[in-house]
Each structure stands twice: as structure tokens, then as C-alpha cells.
């Protein structure tokens, strides 16, 4: 691990030492730091917060937000919530899968994209919707979907 990151990691852990219910916020901040949750980081969190690694693993695998493997530079979140579903979200997902040659949940080999279906991003009025990083793309058609992804390539 790079020196700078280990220092930052330690700072996050120190900030939450002794705080009740700190595990999830710590993991969120650590993931922001590394873009996933590396093994070494989890061990450091366990030691720092005095939480057994098994419990950390339980929490990490329970919540969909946490990743144990490195993520792509851009995250594509395709909404498959109800509103998007009834307006054909599945087609968009399939289109992206074939475009990037990966399945839902996977990362491209060049680590450019991670594709994930999510349940509602709260812009149901634009269904079907996807988010690439922080940007929303709504009223998707297969063509619009392709064009949006090209912008990040």
C-alpha cells in the first residue's frame, strides 16, 4: 500500500475510534479512499476498531455498496427499479452487457467500466434511467445508452 494511503486510512480509523456504531461509516470512507475494500485495509480497520474480521466480512458482504475487488474507473448503474422495469430497463442492461462484453456486476478488463444494476436511483420520472458516475441519463433508448457510454470511453 502506498504510504499516503496508509496514513489516510489510519486517520479515518483514528477519527472513529471509540465512536458507537462506527463500522459502516468507516468502511464507507475507506472505500472512498481505495475505490474498493482491500484485504489489508479491512485488517487495519478490525484492529483499530477492535472488531473481529469475521464481523467486518459479514457487514461488507451484507450491503451492496461494498466491494471486495477493485472497481472500474467509471461506474455504470443501470436502474432496474419498478418504474424503469416497466419501461424496458432490461433491454438497456442487455445492450450495455453486449457493448462492453461483460455481465451485470463485472468490470471490464481495462478497468474502465464497472456495470451494476441498481434498484431505483430516485429519478423514476425519467425511466428508464442509468447513472454513469454522478451523471444521470434518462429516457434511455438503446441508441442513447450507447452514445452515453461512448462519452466516457
Amino acid at each position, binding site marked *: 500500500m502506498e504510504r499516503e494511503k496508509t496514513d489516510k486510512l489510519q486517520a479515518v480509523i483514528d477519527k472513529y475510534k471509540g465512536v458507537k456504531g462506527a463500522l459502516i461509516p468507516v468502511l464507507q470512507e475507506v472505500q472512498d479512499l481505495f475505490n474498493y475494500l482491500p484485504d489489508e485495509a479491512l485488517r487495519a480497520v478490525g484492529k483499530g476498531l477492535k472488531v473481529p474480521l469475521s464481523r467486518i466480512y459479514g457487514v461488507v458482504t451484507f450491503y*451492496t455498496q461494498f466491494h471486495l475487488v477493485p472497481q472500474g474507473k467509471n461506474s455504470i448503474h443501470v436502474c432496474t427499479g419498478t418504474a424503469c422495469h416497466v419501461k424496458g430497463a432490461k433491454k438497456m442492461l442487455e445492450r450495455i452487457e453486449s457493448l462492453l462484453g461483460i455481465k451485470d456486476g463485472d468490470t471490464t478488463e481495462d478497468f474502465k467500466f464497472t456495470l451494476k444494476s441498481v434498484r431505483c436511483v430516485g429519478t423514476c420520472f425519467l425511466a428508464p434511467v442509468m447513472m454513469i458516475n454522478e451523471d*444521470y441519463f434518462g429516457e434511455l433508448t438503446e441508441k442513447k445508452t450507447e452514445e452515453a457510454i461512448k462519452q466516457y470511453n
Partner: protein
Amino acid sequence: MEQRLFKTFDDLAQYRKSLNTLNDPNKIYVRICMTGCRAQGATGVRDALAAGIEERGLKDKIEIIDAGCMGFCAKAPVMVIDPADIFYQGVTAEDASDIIKKTLINNKVVNRLCLNGPKKGTKIVHSRDIPFYKDQETIVLRNCGRISPTSLVHYIERDGYSALAKTLSQMPPEVVIEEVKQSGLRGRGGGGFPTGLKWQFARAAKGAPKYIICNADEGDPGAFMDRAVLEGDPHSVIEGMIIGGYAIGSNEGYIYVRAEYPIAVEHLTIAIAQAEEAGLLGENILGSGFDFKLKIKQGAGAFVCGEETALIASIEGKQGRPRPRPPFPAQSGLWGKPTNINNVETWANIPPIVLNSASWFSSLGTEKSKGTKVFALAGKINNTGLVEVPMGISLRKVIFDIGGGIPKDKKFKAAQMGGPSGGCVPAEHLDLPIDYDSLQEVGAIMGSGGMVIVDENNCMVELARFFLEFTQDESCGKCVPCRIGTKRMLEILTRITLGEGRDEDIDTLIKLGQMIKDSSLCGLGQTAPNPVLSTIRYFRDEYETHIKEKRCAAGSCKELTIYVINPETCTGCMVCAKRCPNAAITGEKKRLHTIDPTKCIKCGLCFESCKFKAVEIKGRL
């Protein structure tokens, strides 16, 4: 505006009187939605307007308000220009100069940006004339779209924190609880439990400290009411929570927000800091001696965390698994202490109730469902967006008058309410008054307010399968009926949609569903079969055609769908052949066309595009 510290009730009241930041007669206000509409480019519009106004030296006369959601999301980005009340929709950055030149300087309307009227060629200029807003009644959304959510000053000017001042200065906690009880307010998170009664339990519970929680997990996919309130008027939720804290005897609260709502978290963070600085949160609020502090907790992506005991486990830093109740959170909640948990919309209702009285609130609605309800309209409906209507209004009014009906003149099939825990309301019940009990009677629920409309092209078996896939995925795995029962139901439903349904499947689904409802640990499992049971109740024939005829009338289940052209009605116009993305349709002009089943990818474009209804859906048999 400079931040101030209010040391007394009078300080706050005096300050409010001195304010004139929203109705200065010498000013023009441009309110633009900078929350939901951001997804459609509102930021660019706002920046272009601001630059143009600056350039022309009009900054003292024209003020842009970065407002919250105005509800009419279908027309995003939207804006209202006051005091003229001009409503513009679908605005782009390129429109900014016209808006400035014509409207802001010369008081003229830019016609192309106005909403289309009911008659062809007509336009609706003023927001007060728009049918979408006509039957609405705003209590929860009273400030949404009217003020800047990041301005405490705006909130105060619109009577913000006066309910808190009234509570702390005049009302003993028991009186506050009585008022909320009398109002008839019921929980808006889906359960519909009387809020005042819940507060009374929490107040009576032994143990200290006590906690207050706001449930902002908004897990129902297809719902965005809570998001809009948090983004558009965060102080209303905070004020409600402080009043609740005072009433039950708690000095500490948490707002649990789902991770997918970054703008909500941002606005809440700002609002909490503002309230703290102003002496409205923290120690000795407004000199009353009452202390209250608030923290934000971000969810980490798990639907079940919307369930109150799971949510509490999640705040404690554990896996969000529900536990059996009793004990209820009122007795043993966060860290084993008495805890009162309410939904965002429930909290936002509190200040108006305290300020305007219980009898004012209970004059709205029906006998057992008081006040208003916010709904998120989505799916196959023209006016997708947020609406707030008095309880008791008919579904027909909401869907057709306010919601503008179904796009492309398709036939309304059902309104799905309450998401994965809810059910569907078919056309035959469109005149049903919306209240907790009527909806329950027809096998649906009020839910938290998600209303997804489906039309004739949606398959109800597929929709039921979709919800089961969702709950199966989100089941935390703690209890067997939910973990394994929903899996079996999903397998059966999947089989039916693939054309492998068996005669006994419908009965099995009903039996299994009833069992899961009766024996699951938490609300997730107890309600998971609802979408299946309710679609079987109203659309049993669809299940049967899938199973017996291997046909999906909506053309949605691809494995069962074969498109054919009817030689009697085909005119040979070639439209379908041109639309087909896979060149599966052949035929010359004015001659019969045919679809090559080996090439057809079942996209349904030919079916959609044929004006003569010559493309038909056949089953696999």
C-alpha cells in the same frame, strides 16, 4: 445572508417579521428546480440565466432561487417566474437569453416554453392554471419548489421553526402528543400506524437516553417522495424531529438516508449546520432549556434496512437484519433504548399540525385517513412526477386528471401501489377513494407513496415475477419462509413466463404465498407474496393463458411471443418492414408482408408501428 443566533423565541419572531426575501415587490424571482431537474440539465439553465442577468446588470432586480422539486418532473427542467406566475418547461441553456430579454426585461411570455394546453395550439402560461396542480393540496410539499432548500432564511420567512417555538414556549410534551393524536396523522412509511400513539408509547417507556429516528431509506423502487422532501425542504423534517424529541423526552436523533441520494445528504448536512449555528438545534434551543442534536447516517444499500428493527441494527454498525417484535423500538430500540422512528413525510407533517391545529389537519381526508398523501407517479403515465393530494381523492382523478392519463392512448391496466409489499389496483377500482382502509380492502396498500402505472403492454405475470425477484434478492436470509419460500415462488413464476407453467402452479402460488405471509419474521416476508396474490386476484386469466395457451397477451414474455401478420388486414404499407431492426420482415409494396420467425428478435417494433393492427401476437401453441 448572515447567519444569526436566536437566543429567545422573540428573537426568532422579530427576525421573521423583518424578512422580505421571497416577496419583495421590487423584484422578480426566478424559481428553478435544482434537485430532480438536475438530471435533465437544470444546472446549465441556471448558470446561463445567472450569467445573462449579471451581464446586463440586473442582479439587484432579478433573483434566481435554486429551488427544490415542483412536482411536474415529466417536463423537466421547469421554472416559475414570480410574481407573474409564469411556468416554463423543458427549458435549455439556449433559452436563457430569450427568457431574460422577453420575460424578465419586457414582461412578455416566451410561448414555446409554455405548457401545451388541452386544445391543440393553445398554451398555458400560469402555473395556477395547470391541470396537474389543480386538485393538489400541499402540506408536506408546502415549501418544495418555493424556497431554496439551502436557505434557512427562506424557511424562516415561510413560518419555519415557528411550530418549534410554539411547542417549546407554550405546549407541555403531553399536549404536543395529544395534538398529534387528535390530528389523526398516521405513519407515511407504509404501516399507517397512528403517530401520536406511537409517541405516547415512547414517552411512557422507561429508560434513558431515548432516541428519535427519521426513516429516509425510501426503499420502494419507483418512489421518490422522501427524496424530494429531503432535497427540497430539509428544515421541515428537522423541525418535525426536534418537536418529536421534545414530546417523547429525547435529546438525540438520527436521520438514516439511503446512499443513493447524494443531494439529500448534502442538503441535510447544510441544514443541520445552519440550524445549529442559529440556535435551533443543539443546547438550550431558543433559550428554552431543551437540548437536541441530530446526526446523519448513510445507508449502504439494502432494502430490508427500511424495516425499523433492521434500520436500527444498521445504525449500530451491524448487518441490517430485522428482529422479532415485540419488544417494539418504543421499548427497546437503538442500543436497547426507547426509540421513536417515523418516516420523512410523517415528520414533515408535524410542524403544520402544531402550527395550524389538529382540527385543521383532520378536516382534510376521510374518517380514518386524515390529511394528505404524497405520491410519486411513474411508469406508463403522461405526467410523471410528484403529487400531493387530500386523502379520499379517487385514483381516477390522480391518474387521469392530475397524471394526464396513459401515453400513446394505450389502455390503463393497473396502478401498482406500495411496491414490493403492495398490490395492484385494476381499472374496475379506479373510483376507489385513496385511503388506508379502502386500498387494503381491494388487496393493495397505501404504501409509502410509490404509484407505478402499467398499461396493456405490460404483463402482470412478468410484473409479479419482477417483484419476487426483488424480494428474493433483498431477503436477508434470517427466516426460512422468506429465504426459501420466496425462492420457490420465484422459480414457479419464472417457469410460467418461460412457457413451462403447469396446471397446478396458480394454486401452489396462492398456498405458498399465504404460508409465507403467515410465518415470516418481518414485514418484508410478510408482504412479499402480495404482488403475486393481487395479480392472481385480478389477472388470473393472464396467468392461465400463459400456462394453458403458452401465450403472453402483452407480448412481454419473449419466450411465449410469436409475431405474425394477418393477411386479412395487412395493407402492404411497408412501415413494419422499415422499422424492423433485424430485417426479419419481407414483402413488397401493397403486397402481404411476412415475418421470418428465425430472424425475429421479438422487439415488438412492428406490433407498435402497425396502424392497421395487422401484426398480431400468437402464443407458442
